[in-house]
């Protein structure tokens, strides 16, 4: 039974469903945008990060962080639908179909990744104005956002697959996923954090995602945090993370089928 046909059809369903529920679009895009505008304007020039390329104010520093937040929110909201699919019954029919289990994981992750990419890029069209990115860098940025989204979707998949209720997922989101985002260099530069926190930041795969995104926007290392990973390492780590999440998704799907 075909992997591509099975995953393509589940991917398509994911997208169609999403666009038939406009409130979900507002939820995934609205909150991060408000965060960025309020925090960015409020902190304003109280924050000024000296970089090789010149001083950077908070609105600009926080910009890639907000993109990652949008990606995180979209990934989470669309993987939560696994719990709904299980409760409402759609998932059981997928599970008794002869389609490969890999198609189920891939379809879901590709669907959520596409949505996260669409949302992330909706903000990233501002990159030329906010961060001086050249329009030619857009494909590179999109590729990095897609890899980050795939990894975060896979992480959401792991959590959602084991969950019986959406409330449980919200608890995990607040206790684990939001801190993961905060400690990724998205909100503040890691250089100034105390030593133990720097360790956490370095072990956080999302740190590498944020670094890779900053690099993809500027196309140079001039604007990265001083002790941050090199662009090559950042892209490598986040790609391995994305691949590992897919494999882990496959393992949980094969283990529990109800």
């Amino acid at each position: 039974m075909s992997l591509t046909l099975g995953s393509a059809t589940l991917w398509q369903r994911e997208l169609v469903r999403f666009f038939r529920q406009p409130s979900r679009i507002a939820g995934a895009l609205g909150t991060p945008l408000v965060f960025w505008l309020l925090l960015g304007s409020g902190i304003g020039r109280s924050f000024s990060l000296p970089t090789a390329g010149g001083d950077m104010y908070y609105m600009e520093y926080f910009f890639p962080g907000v993109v990652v937040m949008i990606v995180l929110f979209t990934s989470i909201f669309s993987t939560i639908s696994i719990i709904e699919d299980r409760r409402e019954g759609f998932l059981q029919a997928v599970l008794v179909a002869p389609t490969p289990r890999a198609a189920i994981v891939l379809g879901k992750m590709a669907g959520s990744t596409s949505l996260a990419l669409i949302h992330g890029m909706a903000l990233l069209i501002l990159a030329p104005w906010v961060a001086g990115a050249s329009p030619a860098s857009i494909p590179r940025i999109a590729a990095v956002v897609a890899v980050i989204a795939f990894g975060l979707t896979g992480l959401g998949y792991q959590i959602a697959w084991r969950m019986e209720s959406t409330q449980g997922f919200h608890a995990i989101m607040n206790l684990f996923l939001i801190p993961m985002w905060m400690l990724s260099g998205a909100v503040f530069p890691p250089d100034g954090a105390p030593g133990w926190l720097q360790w956490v930041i370095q072990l956080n795969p999302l740190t590498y995602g944020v670094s890779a995104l900053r690099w993809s926007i500027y196309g140079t290392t001039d604007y990265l945090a001083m002790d941050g990973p090199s662009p090559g390492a950042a892209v490598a780590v986040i790609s391995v993370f994305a691949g590992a999440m897919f494999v882990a998704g496959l393992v949980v799907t094969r283990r529990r089928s109800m």
Partner: protein
Amino acid sequence: MPAVEVSRVRHAYGGRIALDDVSFQVEPGEIFALLGPNGGGKTTLFRILSTLMPPDAGSVRVFDADVRTEAAQVRRNIGVVFQNPSLDGKLTARENLLHQGRLYGMRGAALRSRIDEMLAQMAIAGRAADRVEALSGGLQRRVELAKGLLHGPRLLILDEPSAGLDPGARLDLRRYLTRLRDERRVTVLWTTHLIDEAEDADRVLILDRGRVVATGSPNALREEIGGDVIALATADAPGLGGQIRERFGIEPMILDGSVRIEKEDGHRFVAALIEAFPGRIDSVTLAKPTLEDVFIDRTGHRLWEDR
């Protein structure tokens, strides 16, 4: 080769035993009912047969493929109709069927014409473009049935198929399933807790507390009871039961405060009872045995008993 071959299956959830040494076979082209009270093990058996979970022990084969090791092959051969429709409410009926078909490897024009065929068979072609959440429960069940049959399965498994259907729709469903068996040789297996739904099957397996209580055609099972079933309403069921035993040398059963007797030529025996115990019997019912009587006979309690 049997359509379904279940042998010595055991399954437990934690410490609670759901299936205890269950064995049976379903022949191709049979309409087979799994009858039992809620909590009797039907749902567990349904999950195992539909490949949602493997049994703890024992073997289950569907058209000679093992549900544990050859799940993909089993899945190709079975169509599953869930009690809670497995439909996506945000999608239209046709879209639901499109995704279903592709998950079974169907595509393109062949898939589209098969969907049209199923929509027509279920008489829902006019609502194909409506979102499923806007359809009534009865129509949703028809879309669900179309979904289960779309890929032309050899075995159709239905979980409580008439739950939530009005009597007319129930009758339509039974007729349709019979036609499906007669014309396409599809084997049909359903779970039910309703006696009359089990009476419609060619053969019935009665499950209680995870064990097989009886298997056979509804007629054969009823004939095993023999004769009629007499129920006597009385103020003192145990006392009357004891006296009946002494006087007639038979073993009455006391159930829910009434005396229950299985006896040939029940009408004659009723007359004898009334004469023997004047004023002791408040009312009498005399009936041909049903599958519920079979169940009571084998388990000593009713299908619908709180436990």
